[in-house]
């Protein structure tokens, strides 16, 4: 989602025009838009007076930033050591089957996108994934299907269908 100009300027105005505020500013944009739209990165560089190449470098360095639009719910599949051994590959395969997207992709409804992370700190529950702020452990093909269904139902309720 691209922000209207006034909204973007509001975000900018929370910070002085200085290079050291680049990171929090990018975080705010990512929070508002779900990703870092190219035009906003360019405007942020202009506002802060920092070369665009530096802001771009920052935006591509941190894993928590995405330059591509992401789904409303970001599924973080753990591929840390414990989860890898407990067949996190299968979790990814299952998601791929259900959503038709691979790692880094977003499903066609814009509801889910899939990413991998290295250890979510819940190894005892391996294999683990996170959707938004919620953890889901000891995943199986069935439980993954159910979890996604749950989210879809929740969405339908929100949308009043």
């Amino acid at each position: 989602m691209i922000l209207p100009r006034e909204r973007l300027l509001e975000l900018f105005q929370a910070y002085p025009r200085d290079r050291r505020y680049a990171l929090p500013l990018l975080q705010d944009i990512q929070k508002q838009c779900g990703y870092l739209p190219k035009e906003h990165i360019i405007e942020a560089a202009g506002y802060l007076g920092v070369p665009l190449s530096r802001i771009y470098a920052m935006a591509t360095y941190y894993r928590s930033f995405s330059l591509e639009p992401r789904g409303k719910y970001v599924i973080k599949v753990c591929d840390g050591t414990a989860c890898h051994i407990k067949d996190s590959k299968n979790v990814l395969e299952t998601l791929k089957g259900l959503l038709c997207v691979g790692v880094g992709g977003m499903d066609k409804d814009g509801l889910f996108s899939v990413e991998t992370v290295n250890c979510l700190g819940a190894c005892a529950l391996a294999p683990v994934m996170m959707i938004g702020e919620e953890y889901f452990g000891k995943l199986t093909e069935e439980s993954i299907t159910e979890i996604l269904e749950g989210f879809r139902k929740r969405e339908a309720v929100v949308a009043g269908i």
Partner: protein
Amino acid sequence: MNIQIDGKTCIAEPGESILETARRNNIDIPSLCHHEALPGLACCRLCVVEIEDATGNRLVVASCVYPVAESVTVYTNTEKIKKHRRTNLTLLAGHVPEVKGVLLAYCREYGVIRDDSHMKAVVKEKCILCGLCVTACEALGNSAIQMAMRGIDRVVAPPFNEPSLNCIGCASCARVCPTDAIDCESVSGNRKIWGKTFSLVKCAACGEPYATVDELDWLKGKLLDTELNLAYCPNCRRRVSVNTGK
């Protein structure tokens, strides 16, 4: 102050690096990521030397960033150092399938041969991520390129991998690159670099192309001294100014 480098007494300026002192005193230390006009990045580790303090303790340090101090004795070419350099060269050369430029010269000097049985090189990769090009462009005030991405995907690139508005086609980045990794072609009056094409300007005296139109425009914007005649290449300019007294 005086320091001992390979048994020779060398005069060192306070604050300079061991590498600078050594080179000023005609002692050669190999380096890839150091440039006398740019701040050191200290990532190639070819410039390693051994230093010995007053108590006889020895330490291996990167000479391009290690400041000189009165009390140290420096050894630039011990067996240990040569071994370290060979290892570093093997790793650097292993990263690039096509070893070129200064890196190739050092590999020959140190007898390092690329060996694919241990390491598989990144296909088509020539860059060893030393960062000199980035610092050069930054020092000139354009900052058109940066190190982007992370880990194994790390690359030098203009923003969004697209031709950068800030790039003036000066090719300073390509000139400082120790592995000739930056594609820079000059054909029929044009220079192509970082996906952007620039028109080249020919020197009014010798006719050699010596700068891009964008570069001269940029220079004009920077220069306070309007007397400097930008119609000539630096060589001819010097001659012309001597002859005309300007």
